[in-house]
């Protein structure tokens, strides 16, 4: 890029003031509380909205210019990738399963974030945060669209991505990211900003985009790398917005501090639970690995998040208390998650497999405290059974956590041999949780979480079969009916990678690409 820089009449600070506060006005014939009805009920007190300033001082005119440049770069690369049969250059076809997880689990969240930021921006009386929310809202829909465009090329060749949005609203494990975002957008505008703007974007998003996208580059997936980095270039601005919002709210009134602290505690935990999927992507699904989940957590949360919370200490904000439990889980999280998807491979839109000898050795070296002792014996057993034609497909539905909606796979803090069970009695019914943190979140707002759409319970209530299904007929196969409802084809979109059409096709096409047949 060789951009011509026009001589500006105004400096950055003046231009920012003119293009934000300068465009705002004070209403004369409508009351402020009628125009901004959602601004008081969460208990956050704001005295001076003008104290908020975007430190990048980005204005809409400059925004369009730079976003257009990002799009040009992105689409040039996507075109080159597609014209060049780039999908055959990835390390091996197992890699494509991370893309399936991304399009069905993450991209729909980008779209919901677009709606969330549009809503939050509309709710805020201050022009500074309103403009920043508008930009982020536009960024998020751009991310959803560019991800769909990039990944549509994979959809031409590989299974499981054909109806990602339909699946996002229905498939059992996708209720985890879906309910996470639904929880955030049904909160008030301030909680939304703390949940997504701060806790997710600032504290956790690096763990999604940086190691994963760098991993995509390492595995020869130029398309994913490019949309990932293009999205991430907006992310730097989102992180800044998230941090500024927190500082602004905290500086406005000391009464805001405990409310914000509770939101940070809640949303760091909620976001971390969603990242369980990323942990397993990094440790199991990238054929060539850049760093382990544990290493990424140490760099991007412990080191970087540590610096952040040290900086916020002057407002009276402390490190979320869940950080202690997370530290205990980092040796186990990815293995417990991969075991889960290996169990339920018949009901997912991607394939799973057992790591080979070299991969097991890598896992042992990255997880010396846990892998050989707890997980290797399990994997070796599964591998032996698969070799005998007895691959394990768990067909019985699991118990789920009422808050995070993940199956109850997590172990007691400090004892990785015992499943962690927590429960609460509320208005005559029992509710179950994977952890103290999910339990506390429920106890704070039980009215909200008793409405959870838990996929397992919905299946048993008969709500997850195609219309017209009669579950009372002789020989009814509930799994088959549920897969139809998900729009997944048994034997093609699910089951082990080893017997998949993806594996067979990739080998054949790669052969054609390198030989004259």
């Amino acid at each position, binding site marked *: 890029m060789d951009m011509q820089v026009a001589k500006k009449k105004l400096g950055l600070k003046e231009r920012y003031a003119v293009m934000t506060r300068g465009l705002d006005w004070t209403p004369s014939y409508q009351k402020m509380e009628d125009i901004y*009805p*959602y601004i008081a*009920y*969460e*208990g956050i007190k704001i005295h001076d909205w003008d104290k908020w300033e975007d430190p990048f001082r980005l204005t809409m005119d400059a925004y369009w210019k730079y976003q257009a440049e990002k799009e040009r770069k992105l689409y040039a690369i996507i075109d080159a990738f597609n014209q060049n049969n780039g999908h055959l250059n990835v390390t091996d076809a197992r890699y494509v399963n991370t893309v399936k997880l991304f399009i069905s689990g993450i991209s729909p969240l980008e779209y919901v974030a677009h709606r969330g930021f549009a809503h939050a921006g509309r709710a805020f009386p201050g022009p500074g945060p309103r403009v920043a929310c508008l930009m982020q809202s536009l960024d998020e829909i751009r991310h959803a669209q560019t991800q769909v465009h990039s990944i549509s090329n994979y959809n031409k060749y590989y299974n499981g991505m054909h109806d990602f949005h339909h699946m996002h609203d229905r498939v059992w494990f996708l209720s985890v990211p879906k309910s996470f975002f639904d929880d955030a957008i049904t909160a*008030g505008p301030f909680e939304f900003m703390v949940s997504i703007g701060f806790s997710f974007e600032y504290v956790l998003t690096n763990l999604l985009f940086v190691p994963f996208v760098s991993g995509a580059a390492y595995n020869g997936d130029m398309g994913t790398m490019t949309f990932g980095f293009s999205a991430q270039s907006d992310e730097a601005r989102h992180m800044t917005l998230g941090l500024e919002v927190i500082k602004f709210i905290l500086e406005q009134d000391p009464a805001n501090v405990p409310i914000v602290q509770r939101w940070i505690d809640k949303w760091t935990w909620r976001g971390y639970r969603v990242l369980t999927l990323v942990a397993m992507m990094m440790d199991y699904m990238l054929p060539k690995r850049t760093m382990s989940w544990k290493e990424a957590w140490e760099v991007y949360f412990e080191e970087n998040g540590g610096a952040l919370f040290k900086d916020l200490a002057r407002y009276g904000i402390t490190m979320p208390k869940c950080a202690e439990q997370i530290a205990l889980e980092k040796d186990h999280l990815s293995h*417990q998650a991969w*075991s*889960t998807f290996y*169990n*339920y491979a018949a009901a997912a839109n991607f394939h799973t497999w057992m790591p080979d000898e070299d991969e097991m050795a890598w896992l042992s070296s990255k997880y010396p405290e846990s892998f050989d*002792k*707890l*997980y290797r*014996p*399990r994997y*070796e*057993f*599964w591998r032996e059974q698969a070799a005998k034609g007895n691959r*394990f497909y*768990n*067909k*019985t*539905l*699991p*118990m*789920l956590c009422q808050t995070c909606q993940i*199956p*109850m*796979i997590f*172990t007691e803090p400090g004892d990785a*041999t*015992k*499943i962690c*069970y927590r*429960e609460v009695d509320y*208005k005559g*019914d*029992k*509710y*179950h949780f994977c952890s103290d943190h999910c339990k506390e979140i429920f*106890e*704070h*707002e039980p*009215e*909200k979480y*008793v*409405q*959870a*759409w*838990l996929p*397992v*319970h919905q299946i*048993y*209530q*008969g709500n997850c079969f195609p219309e017209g299904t009669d579950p009372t007929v002789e020989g009814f196969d509930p799994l088959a009916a549920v897969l139809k409802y998900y729009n997944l084809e048994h034997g093609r979109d699910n089951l082990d990678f080893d017997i998949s059409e993806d594996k067979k096709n990739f080998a054949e096409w790669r052969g054609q690409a390198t030989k004259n047949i």
Partner: protein
Amino acid sequence: MAVAAISKYEFAPTDTQDKFHGAQLLYIGWEDHLLFCAPFAFPFPPTMRFGDVVAGPMQAAFGYHPDFAQIDWAKVEWFKSGKPVTLDFDKSLAENGLKHKDVIRFRTPGLAGIEGSCS
């Protein structure tokens, strides 16, 4: 605590027993056998004999594990919500005091998973 809301916030819970067509939910976990990644959720009629739960659905769900065939059911320790409980195979779920969304676990002394790894 209550949800912060702009008006009255009251909604019916999603998973009350009346939604399950005569069944009630029972969660069952096998201690020290994490080859099954999580406890299972089952819908059973409250009148179902507990022994039939063990012989039928539990056999189908846990039977893949080589330890399952070795279980001496007379020695099994049962827990309800983490506390020891005695369950009578000849009585129904309701007669055993098991209600909608109760969670039971069982420990099988001497059996601790693949190579004792709790898998």
